[in-house]
């Protein structure tokens, strides 16, 4: 081959930057209902193309179509809609509370509500999620008290984590929600270890690992896939591709590979891609992967294709790195509106009832907020004691910490 001359360095760039016209023409969206639904014991080698497609159930008309449809009753779908509205309302109230100085920090789920809310309903009690900071829908959909979440966000005297953790870093063993860490991707391999433990113990519980598109670049993502593959661990490996890692577009983490789901193929892990804004599709795919794990068929990797509509966090301003109206152009739409339209199409819901539901939910969230604020906010009212700061480092407090606690005057 001829010498091409000087080498050139390649750095991927998103299609559009601030000031530009949003453009998702490069995102191929298969028709709803077009991707087949294999048996859970399918030979993984025969479904490799699923890592490059997108499983969708709801079409533009709001109809549920294809082989992944029909798993949920109207009642379950209405409940799912309620969970998503609750999470969205919760987010907007807490975002506001942060702006009012009642807490230091918050992270919204705007646009990603279907992913965690629908996934939770595919699990059984006792299963364990290893979430990131953007899966609070797992708690909402499992009935974890909103007041407890707010107490944690406010670091008040009723904070279940005693004020030790940054807001939104919840923990609830009872609700199958592993303690959140600020260190990205660490929980992904831990989820695999939990699943290995369940298999070692001949249990029937399974684990669900969670990671964002950006964090798949961390080495623990790779470690998790190796271990899950080697030991056929009963775990669902979830990748939430919301297109953005703070200011970095997903192409920086994805590089030349076609999709994040495709990462699983090299490890021999069946890998599916799903419309993350389609409550029905998320639930159906989650259920498929969960059943596979429970049937001892091993891990499944699922990429949820969605869009991070909100800022990364309350400390972020996305208008500095992406067009302001980009989320409006996102071809998979809004998960709440899509499920609402489906239920209206089915004749079990209406615009009026939706408006009414939103108002009722807002009232519930405000009531929870009042109750939580009664226990204090970050800078006002009750707060965890200074003694709590020294507890729980070890099961039993060692002498050097006892001395330090004494020095602190508590």
């Amino acid at each position, binding site marked *: 081959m001829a010498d091409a001359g000087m080498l050139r360095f390649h750095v991927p760039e998103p299609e559009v930057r601030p000031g530009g016209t949003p453009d998702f023409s490069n995102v191929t969206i298969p028709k709803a209902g077009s991707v087949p639904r294999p048996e859970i014991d399918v030979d993984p080698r025969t479904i490799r193309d699923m890592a490059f497609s997108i499983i969708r159930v709801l079409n533009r008309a709001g109809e549920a179509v294809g082989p992944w449809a029909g798993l949920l009753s109207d009642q379950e779908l209405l409940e799912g809609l309620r969970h998503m509205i609750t999470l969205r309302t919760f987010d907007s109230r807490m975002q506001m509370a942060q702006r009012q100085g009642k807490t230091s920090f918050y992270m919204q789920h705007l646009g990603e509500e279907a992913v965690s809310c629908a996934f939770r309903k595919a699990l059984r009690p006792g299963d364990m999620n290893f979430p990131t900071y953007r899966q609070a829908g797992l708690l909402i959909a499992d009935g974890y008290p909103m007041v407890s979440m707010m107490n944690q966000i406010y670091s008040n005297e009723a904070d279940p984590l005693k004020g030790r953790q940054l807001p939104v870093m919840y923990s609830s063993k009872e609700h199958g929600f592993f303690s959140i860490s600020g260190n990205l991707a660490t929980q992904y391999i831990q989820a695999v*270890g939990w699943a290995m433990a369940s298999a070692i113990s001949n249990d029937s519980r399974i684990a669900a690992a969670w990671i964002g598109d950006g964090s798949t670049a961390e080495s*623990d993502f790779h470690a998790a896939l190796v271990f899950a593959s080697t030991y056929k661990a009963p775990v669902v490996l979830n990748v939430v591709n919301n297109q953005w890692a703070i200011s970095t577009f997903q192409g920086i983490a994805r590089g030349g590979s076609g999709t994040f789901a495709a990462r699983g193929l090299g490890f021999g892990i069946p890998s599916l891609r799903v419309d993350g804004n389609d409550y029905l599709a998320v639930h159906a795919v989650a259920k498929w992967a969960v059943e596979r794990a429970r049937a001892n068929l091993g891990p499944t990797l699922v990429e949820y294709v969605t869009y991070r509509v909100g800022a990364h966090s309350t400390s972020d301003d996305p208008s500095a790195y992406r067009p302001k109206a980009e989320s409006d152009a996102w071809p998979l739409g809004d998960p709440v509106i899509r499920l609402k339209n489906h239920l209206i199409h089915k004749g079990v819901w209406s615009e009026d009832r939706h408006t009414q539901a939103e108002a009722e939910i807002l009232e519930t969230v405000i009531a929870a907020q009042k109750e939580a604020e009664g226990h204090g906010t970050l800078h006002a009212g009750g707060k965890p004691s200074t003694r709590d700061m020294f507890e729980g480092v070890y099961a039993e407090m060692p002498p050097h910490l006892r001395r330090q606690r004494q020095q602190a005057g508590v």
Partner: protein
Amino acid sequence: MPRRTMIEAIRDAMDVSMERDNKVIVYGEDVGFFGGVFRATQGLQAKYGKSRCFDAPISESGIVGSAIGMAAYGLKPCVEVQFADYVYPAYDQIVSEAARLRYRSNGDFTCPIVVRMPTGGGIFGGQTHSQSPEALFTHVSGLKVIVPSNPHDAKGLLIAAIEDPDPVIFLEPKRLYNGPFDGHHDKPVTPWSKHELGEVADGHYTIPLGKAAIRRPGSAVTVLAYGTMVYVAQAAAEETDIDAEVIDLRTLLPLDLETIVASVKKTGRCVVVHEATLTSGFGAELVSLVQENCFYHLEAPVARVAGWDTPYPHAQEWDYFPGPARVGRALLETLEA
């Protein structure tokens, strides 16, 4: 009483723990079928099955990260990192996760894991088979850090570590695996079968974490040491004929400050010895604690003998390793100060 090498004692500790509690799981690189590159897990897979003792992919972060998940489930993993020099890929999991899980979840989740790793030099291991990274762990709130120096302690401390409800870093001086070593590399090594601390009782016993042992009572100067340096310090005391009190710390975190302070208040002098590099090594913490707690009893500055602040070399092994001559010099200087 049966005599065992340190390797045999460590293997016995895992055997006893696995026998007593089916939640104890042992894994790591080459740990399963082969029984470990140092034979520490030999026979465990055959006895307890592949679900209890198995080989792991070459991924330290994967080994420790999965162990944390297992511990959160309710098992008690005792995992191996082949050399302490290779623990760094797992450092995030140890520091950010294992050490903090109980604290950050307010006890909702806990992490009763043991991470075993061969440590220390004196074996021509060069840069990546000789390091002593204990200070990287003693600086981490939420960890316990152990360095045994003999078969009897190794077994009792390892069983205690496995039963402990918190994460434990268990550093095994590989130079001591087959016999005590006082730094005299030119003399033949005595096997553990000829040493009284090679006596290891059968069955279950524990040595409490956080308790030091006085190896050589003395009144002139206190020597704080652990691991291989315990024997080097003892040899230095004999060869200089100085009445040194040699304390084997055994657990670095939490530290047995009481035993240290009582000894230094008695002797009025203190020398700290470790293989690890000097600057910001664990010795700095020991010197600081002695100064804070024994200031008015001190007759001389507290001295440190440590590895030089260089990467661990190969050819210059015995110029690097703090042997009895260097320790002896520090003892004399401290007495004359």
